[in-house]
């Protein structure tokens, strides 16, 4: 079972994403900020990470940088309410940049694309 980490400071989003992704047959790990996310990345052999950008303690961009340092092969999707961070070259390290929407079909199809095998 593919392992996905969802990092978002909003509990409701974490819940929604985990429900939807579990339904798709993934094992879902949850983190409330970048620091927690890194801890999980270090412990668990993850297959994919979904990172929110605006988070307390450590934001998604910093988390992205550190994850890519530790596991350059791990796909990291940025899922954010902000469209404009697309211009921030730090986000270019991510594999995908997605703007959050209540319709999760886009997100799920992207995840599926990365975890095909």
């Amino acid at each position: 079972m593919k392992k996905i980490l969802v990092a978002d400071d909003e509990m409701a989003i974490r819940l929604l994403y985990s429900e939807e992704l579990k339904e798709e047959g993934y094992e879902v790990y949850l983190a409330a900020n970048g620091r927690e996310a890194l801890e999980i990345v270090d412990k668990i052999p993850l297959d994919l990470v979904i990172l929110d950008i605006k988070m307390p303690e450590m934001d998604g961009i910093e988390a992205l940088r550190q994850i890519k340092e530790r596991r350059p092969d791990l796909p990291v999707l940025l899922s954010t309410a902000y469209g404009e961070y697309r211009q921030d070259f730090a986000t270019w390290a991510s594999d995908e940049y997605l703007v959050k929407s209540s319709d999760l079909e886009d997100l799920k199809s992207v995840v599926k694309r990365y975890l095909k095998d």
Partner: protein
Amino acid sequence: MAAERAGFLTQMVEVLTSTVSFGERLNNMVHLLARHLKVDLALYFALDKAREALVLQISSAGPIPAHLRLEFGLGQGLVGETAATRKPRVVHRHQTGVLEANQALGKLHPAFHTLAAFPVADDNFMYGVLLLVDREDRAFTPAERQSVQLACLMLAGTLRQAIVQEEAKKRIAELSVLFEVGKALSSTVELEVLLERIVSTTAKVITARGAALHIQDKATGEARVSSRYGQIPSVCPALPEMLPSPGASGEPPHHEGQAVDADGRTHFCLAVPLTFKGPLTGTLGVYDKLSPAGEFLPFDPENRQLLYTMAGVVVNAIENALTYQQVEDLAERNERMVMNLTTLQEIYRALLTTVQAEKLLDMVLQGLTLEQGLGFDRALVLLVDEATLTLNGAKGARRTPALIKSSLYDALLRPLSQAIPLTDWQIPLRTDQGPLAQAVLMKRPYHWHRAQKAPGLPGPLAQKYAAREFYVVPLIVKDRATGVLMVDNHDSGRPLSTEVLGVLQMFAAQAALVLENARLYSTIEANNRELLLMRERMLESDRLAALSSLASGMAHEIRNPLVSIGGFARRIAKLVEEKSPLRGYVEVIQEEVTRLEKLLREILDFTGENLSYYGDHDLAKLIEDTLVLVQRDLKASKIEVVKDYAELPRLHCDDRQMKQVFYNLFQNALQAMPQGGNLTIRTYPLEKPDGLYEAVAITDTGGGIPLEVLHNIFNPFFSTKDYGTGLGLAIAQRIISRHYGQIEVNNEMGKGVTFIVSLPVAKYCLVKETGQRVVPASALHAPKGGGG
């Protein structure tokens, strides 16, 4: 005998010391002598003033008729000899030569036999000769002779006393005259009054019927001042023509004359020179000396002497007064200058109240023609056009009579009442084009006078603008002539003085400055308008930036909960039975969230929007397309739509965004008219300073926006109960400004609101480097798709 002699001498003393007049005393004495010596005649011959002849003055026979006024030269006859030798002598008819030498006496006493002559003299002076005549051959006794000689001595004493007295009287008279004159002269320094006093005093002291005074310039002969008093006979020459010439035998110069008038009366005149130190010369004259009986008498040397004295005294006084008058003239001139300066200052104060060239021009003309101002009859302003190198008429004005109780300042601010149009005045700036062009080219004022035969206004202007004389003063700013002021006093004919020219030049300097300032200001104003426009745009973009950050902040905050609300709604929807009523509720949640998310995208996506949707669109069609979207709501609210579309060229715009604008405005109107009303949509072309616009006016009947919120309606997130969209208008404004258009609100409280959206027909964009707008030809003519 001795007693008789003593009686005679006593009588003699009585006569001589009596209080009767001197002439009377002399007369009495002569009679006394005749009586005492019992001679036929006692005669007194007086030595004349010239001391050349002895003239019969008194006769014991009574008054002497004119033909018997005998006269003997000094040494001539017994009388003359006695006067010459100062020795008494007695001669008899029969003695040799006596009759011949004294034949003249025969007229008085044809049968005279004895003549006894006694000198009347004292140690110093010879006064005359006493002559005793008798028909008898008489030999006077020594006692008789002694008596007579004593009488003669006493007579001489009396005469001397009389002369001294006369002298003293004259001196006193002269002194009193001088005192009078001095009094008159010192009492005033006003020239006119002084001269009047001089002539009247002169006439009085000389007892003349008239007196006159005339002062003229030595070099030019130009009259300076003159004054007259009393009667001046017209037959006498005028004073300037009586310039005294040096008198005979070294006498001081004077002029003495006489003339007979039509009635046969002889008039006399006497004039002496007034000798000034400076460049002036003058004459003081008197006419017709009056006798106590009112007869006209010639003037005697004493009068002449007195007149000289007077002349000497008055010269200084006149000189002082002239100097004083010059000082006073200067003071007066200063006062006028101060007044002129005050006037100028007042005008300048008014000129500073505006920078509008047209108003200033009027004020300048008012200043020149108002009676309280410089008061010229006509004034024209012509300005240099540097492009055509001509002097063009700006405006003219006629003299305006002073209105009662109106200060210059107030009058200046009133509109010009008597304007002269000068539209056809165009003078090439060449030296052969008359004084106006020359004033500009030489940067010098010009005084044109018809009499000078100098070239006047060129050709047709000269015929139209008739003038005797005029001033042209250049308007000079920073050594550059920007125009001219031209003034004249054509209607009243008042001369133009050099003093006026000075004031005019000062005025011109001010006028030039304010007119130039106005010109600069209008340039600045144009630049300012441009700047303001730019600044508004900048502010707009500032506001948009604020909107952007606020909106994005808000949007992000909203986006997260929306994602969870919407996401869970979808999850619920999947779980709920197809037939369950819950399914519908969940779908509502889902749809609403989707709508909100779409709105968020629209807002957030404005950032960095490209122009890829721009195209050429028909404004009316965009409106119609948008109306379709709100058709149902309009119907539901019973709102009637009134359309008035003008035939307009296509607009270069983003049709989606423009539809958004109209949609938002329609939403606004819908919310304003929940009880129904009219929605009027009008399109029309609009000419603005920077080009042609297409305008859409959307009017509702929703009662208007309260004043206190009116200024806020374009602020993002501002909303009222009546006009509640908040973001709607802000978005509309943002879209419009991205199209370089404007949105305005006409609010009519109690009626409704009109939003006017105006969009430039030409697609113009700000080219950053030059700040100029570029207008593509396609936008002005038949557009052919695409662009941007």
